[in-house]
């Protein structure tokens, strides 16, 4: 351990401190708030890039703080953490710009941005966690910091959604903690970077290990929206669009599935998990979630709820990739973490644009909207086609690797699941795109304000940037700097250990 | 030998100069004495084998602080003069009003 682990603390502080300061700002200090927000986001991104530079050169960053003898709070920077942390930082920057434009007239902005910054600190803390206890601490903090954002609007609907959210996530948190406590009692501290943690107790405690696995996966599965623990996600869509975009499509669900990756790969290790027979039920459950999510999405008319069900379905791709016990599938799952995040955030940004500019919340109101907002709908279409898995967009790359991995792991039935889900995705995305571009307007919209852009530039620019990223990441997936290359690096390091 | 003599002169002069700064009644004279105190102090730093500090003392202690003191002194005297003029005008007005 060396002293350079202080960089990780700086990374956490770079959004924690602005968040705490923003809480104390009066409502109308718009400029200071914007400067703090954007300054914090840019600082965090540059510090994370510095960390990646260091990891690339082979330096090792670790921060260790002893809570009480035997248990440490550990922050660690390995390629997987760097992947998740970079994704969070980049998307946070874009969503901050989006949120500043979205909430321009709303009350309680200081409160919102304060909690927003806290959320992103905690998410990066989850990414950088080095043992399961640290992960648990930040995981619970994520629940606490996202709750005020869900109920931000204060309407009865929002409060009810918040209550459901708390029930689900606190219940999951309790299960998670029970699992962590049990496992720690069995084997001691649960470091992510130590191999063979559970080998001493495999023979004697098979049943315990299975039960612990169920508890742990159940605990993180709430946030990862596995069936049947997904009920909070569609309801949480009452939150403002930036919250839905970043948190419930990217940060919270990705934190959940990141937990699954850590538990299966680093705590249990793939060999042990398949030896205990835990991976097959997991792949069944995730496949069920994929199909269920897509099927429910077909029946929704509210745009954000349809996107929420689509998230439930897509995030389970990642878990499916992990549970297939083959490096190719794991690569597909890992890279889908990045790709799905970017595609989903594009879709949510566009949905927010439509809601803010034209008051559209339902898909039936979207006929012909592309004539009025062509750029937004172009971004939406790219995101939707990427979700379906059309080459050369980003979604295709991850589905391809998932399919390859399924074949290599002799689990051909997964291909059927993938094809079915792709068809269902097409069934619920393509009509939206078609009606938007090719139908004529049926629903009355407010008249267009004088101005060159179809929506506020702060709402338009992030969605265009993320749509562009979807395109580029798919096209250049083979280059050295793409998320695909990164996932390959992570899997190579894993298989070498 | 020469250096010991030099140190001796410095040791005597510095406290005397310090006392003179405090004891004079004219502020301007005090500021001038303070600047010369700073210059001698930087010589003392040189004798203590700290040339960096001597440079800084000469530039900041004697130069910048001296200029700051003189500038502040001037602004103080101007504002005092201004106040005295105002007081005199007010007194004149009061006397005029009483006469009326």
């Amino acid at each position, binding site marked *: 351990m*060396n*002293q*350079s682990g*202080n*960089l990780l603390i*700086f990374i956490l502080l770079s959004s924690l401190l602005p968040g705490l300061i923003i809480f104390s700002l009066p409502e109308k200090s718009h400029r200071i708030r914007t400067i703090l927000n954007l300054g914090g986001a840019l600082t965090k991104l540059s*510090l994370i890039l*510095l*960390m990646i*530079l*260091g990891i690339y*050169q082979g*330096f090792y*960053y670790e921060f260790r703080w002893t809570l009480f003898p035997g248990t440490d709070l550990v922050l660690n920077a390995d390629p997987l953490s760097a992947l998740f942390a970079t994704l969070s930082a980049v998307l946070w920057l874009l969503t901050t710009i989006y949120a500043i434009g979205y909430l321009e007239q709303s009350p309680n902005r200081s409160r919102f941005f304060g909690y927003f910054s806290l959320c992103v600190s905690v998410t990066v803390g989850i990414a950088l966690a080095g043992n399961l206890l640290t992960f648990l601490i930040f995981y619970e903090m994520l629940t606490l910091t996202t709750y005020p954002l869900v109920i931000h609007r204060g309407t009865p609907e929002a409060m009810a959604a918040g209550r459901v959210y708390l029930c689900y996530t606190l219940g999951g948190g309790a299960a998670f903690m029970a699992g962590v406590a049990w496992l720690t009692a069995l084997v001691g501290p649960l470091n992510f970077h130590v191999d063979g943690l559970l080998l001493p107790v495999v023979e004697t405690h098979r049943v315990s290990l299975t039960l612990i696995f169920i508890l742990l996966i159940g605990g993180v599965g709430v946030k990862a929206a596995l069936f049947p623990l997904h009920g909070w996600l569609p309801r949480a869509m009452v939150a403002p669009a930036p919250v839905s975009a970043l948190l419930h499509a990217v940060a919270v669900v990705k934190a959940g599935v990141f937990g699954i990756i850590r538990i299966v790969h680093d705590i249990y290790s793939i060999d042990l998990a398949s030896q205990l027979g835990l991976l097959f039920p997991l792949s069944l459950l995730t496949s069920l979630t994929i199909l269920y999510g897509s099927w429910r999405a077909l029946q929704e008319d509210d745009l954000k709820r349809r996107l929420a069900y689509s998230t439930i379905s897509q995030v389970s791709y990642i878990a499916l990739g992990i549970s297939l016990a083959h490096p190719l599938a794991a690569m597909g799952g890992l890279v889908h973490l990045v790709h799905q995040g970017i595609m989903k955030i594009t879709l949510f940004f566009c949905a927010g644009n439509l809601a803010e500019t034209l008051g559209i919340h339902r898909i039936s109101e979207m006929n012909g909207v592309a004539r009025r907002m062509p750029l937004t709908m172009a971004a939406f279409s790219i995101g939707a086609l990427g979700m379906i898995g059309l080459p050369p967009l980003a979604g295709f790359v991850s589905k391809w690797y998932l399919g390859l991995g399924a074949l290599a792991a002799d689990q051909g039935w997964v291909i059927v699941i993938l094809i079915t889900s792709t068809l269902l995705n097409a069934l619920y995305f393509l009509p939206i795109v078609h009606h938007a571009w090719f139908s004529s307007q049926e629903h009355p919209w407010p008249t267009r304000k004088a101005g060159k852009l179809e929506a506020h530039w702060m709402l338009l620019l992030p969605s265009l940037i993320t749509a562009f990223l979807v395109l580029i990441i798919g096209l250049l997936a083979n280059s050295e700097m793409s998320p695909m290359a990164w996932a390959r690096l992570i899997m190579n390091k894993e298989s070498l250990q | 030998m020469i250096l010991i003599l030099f140190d001796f002169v410095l040791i005597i002069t510095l406290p005397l100069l310090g006392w003179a*700064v*405090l*004891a004079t*009644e004219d*502020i301007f004279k*005090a500021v001038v004495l*303070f600047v010369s105190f700073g210059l001698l102090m930087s010589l003392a730093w040189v004798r203590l084998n700290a*040339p*960096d500090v*001597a*440079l*800084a003392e000469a*530039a*900041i202690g004697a*130069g*910048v*602080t001296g*200029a*700051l003191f003189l*500038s502040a002194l*001037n*602004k103080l005297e*101007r504002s005092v003069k201004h106040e005295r003029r105002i007081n005199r005008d007010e007194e004149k007005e009061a006397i005029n009003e009483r006469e009326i």
Partner: protein
Amino acid sequence: MNGGLTGMKKRKQSMKGKFKRKDWQFATLTSLLIATLVTFLCWAILKEPPGEDLTAEALAPLFVQSGVTSPVTAILLNFRGYDTLLEVMVLFLAGLGIWSQATVDPTNPLVFSSPATHPTKPNFHGPGPELILATLVRILIPLMVLVAGYLTWAGGFQAGGAFQGGALLGGAGILLILAEPQRISTIPPALIRFGIVLGPAIFLLVGVSCFGYGGNFLQYPQPGAGSWLLLIEFGAAISIGITLTTLFVGGRPDPKRLKGTDQP
């Protein structure tokens, strides 16, 4: 020391020739305390020599690693770099404090008149003191800037460094303002702000980028430490010079008086 002296001066002014008994008591008590302190300090210094591992010979190998040959600069910027960062920040805060307290009319920053601003003063035939001042300034200021740059660079191997070069730059700035005060109005305030911020900003940036080389905050990478130190020193020198000049001027440029001033 300065504050104490100024305070004592004011007190002396207000009590001309009225030494009461309690003043003598106060004076004796203070002298006794100071004498005790001085005696104690002398005894402490003379009793314990510095430890074996703090002599210059023992520390010599460490100085080689520091990237500069002057031990003062090595300690100031490398071994105790964090303290120097805090000092630079303190100066920055002082500049901020002055800026937030007062505004200064940039066309007439010094309230008193100097020969350059009132060239119409009679009593002199032929070239007067303003010509001497102007010529002196024209010769001296570039020279001062040059020497300040040399001092900052020479801090790596002899007496000098950022604070010394910065003090000289500050002196140059003060001389400029005394000679041609209206010149301040031609400098855009944004440039002055940039100059004040430059030193702390470079220091912080260098400190953070040390993480990218596997070290802690301000733990310079070994082979190239000297160039990092030089970068920090130059930024700090510029910043110190501009901050000292700002402290002398005494406030930020009044935005109302800044528009459309002519060149002198």
